[in-house]
């Protein structure tokens, strides 16, 4: 089941530009110094938008073997996206607030 609750205007624009017709889009929020979901299962090729919903800056990064990325830091209302291209498990964290962690399971 997809975790998208709502996409902001900006997120919808991104969705339209996203390409791959079959791929799904998910939104994971960063709210009250936590990711809005602890665990998310997606398929290879799917994209996750990480949206900052707090009044301060957040970061999103992963140093997982499967997928390494660093989305930098961005303020409330903005989002950045990652497309998962290999199957496996990806640990996602916020570098600024180390208690913020979630897992993305990427399935074939």
């Amino acid at each position, binding site marked *: 089941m997809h975790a998208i609750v709502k996409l902001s205007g900006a997120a919808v624009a991104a969705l339209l530009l996203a390409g791959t017709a079959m791929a799904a889009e998910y939104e994971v929020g960063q709210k009250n110094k936590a990711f809005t979901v602890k665990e998310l299962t997606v398929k290879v090729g799917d994209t996750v938008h990480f949206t900052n919903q707090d009044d*301060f800056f957040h970061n999103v990064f992963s*140093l997982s073997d499967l997928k390494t990325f660093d989305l930098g830091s961005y303020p409330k209302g903005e989002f950045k996206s990652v497309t998962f291209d290999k199957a496996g498990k990806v640990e996602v964290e916020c570098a600024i607030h180390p*208690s913020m962690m979630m897992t993305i399971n990427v399935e074939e």
Partner: protein
Amino acid sequence: MRNRTGAARIHALAGVMVLVAAAGVARGETGLVFEAGHPSLQHWLLPERPPYPEDNEPTPERVALGKMLFFDPRLSSDGNMSCASCHNPMFGWSDGLPTARGHKSMVLGRASPTVINTAYNTIQMWDGRKKDLEDQAIGPMEASVEMNTDFDRLFRFLNNNQGYSEAFARAYPGEGINKRTLAKAIASYERTIISNDSPFDRWIRGDASAMTEQQVRGFRIFVDPDKGNCAICHSAPNFTDNGFHNLGLASDGGESADPGRYAIKPVKILKGAFKTPTLRDVALTAPYFHDGSARTLMEVVEHYVKGGVVRERVSPNIRPLNLTAREKQDLVAFMEALTTRHEPVTLPELPLR
């Protein structure tokens, strides 16, 4: 002052206005009402007891043993440095130095953080390399530049010392004398070093006379995103977000700058980032910042008003502030309201044999 900010906020609220007309106080963007005891402020009160791991409930026996160990210089290789050498209750459980002095009085790179309220932290050390107090307590003993402890010798000493072997047996029956029980005992004592009854706490609980008008003004500035914006990182209830930020300190420039959290987690924004310290009892723990570069709370405020000095990697939460001289003084006065009047610390009698 109150009317001006109140009016500006009502304007900004655009439809979400909640006016407490009788008191003449507006609920600002922060949703807070700045009245002693107001329900909107209760999240600033700390839980009465700090959390502790399941296998280390702080019993009186554990706390008493931890206190002996905390003040015992025989834990260090030269027998002259205890935990209290750098975490001294006479200096707000820090050392009053810009950066710590270690083994053979070596000058270390970072300031000694206070022990006060570390029990509430979800991560320990300036760079977060230790996860809890048990994990942290053993660190300075293991560090060759700090206490440089010879553990074989220390455990022989503790096992052969009647006072200690009995105290360990009472505190941790059947668990022995080892790094784990040593760390658990010290952590148990540290969980008693708490600041939660400051004028600020009493005001939050409803005592309107606990803070001065100036301190209440300072609190408003502290939380106002358009003014001090301090609570963005020094957040409720322990005045820390347990997060890591680059403050743009002068020492952050150049190749030799301390990497801070980046050495533990190599993510770009963590270069020169350090953990947000609590501000509880902050008036007791000068000098300030991880490099001890600010001598007074006013110097700290001036740093933030400038928005930092070396801005290359500064946290985006930090930007120049528009504060009047009076507002800066109000902020300092507020931080001075965060000091708990502590019971005098009594020193343990250490077992000689």
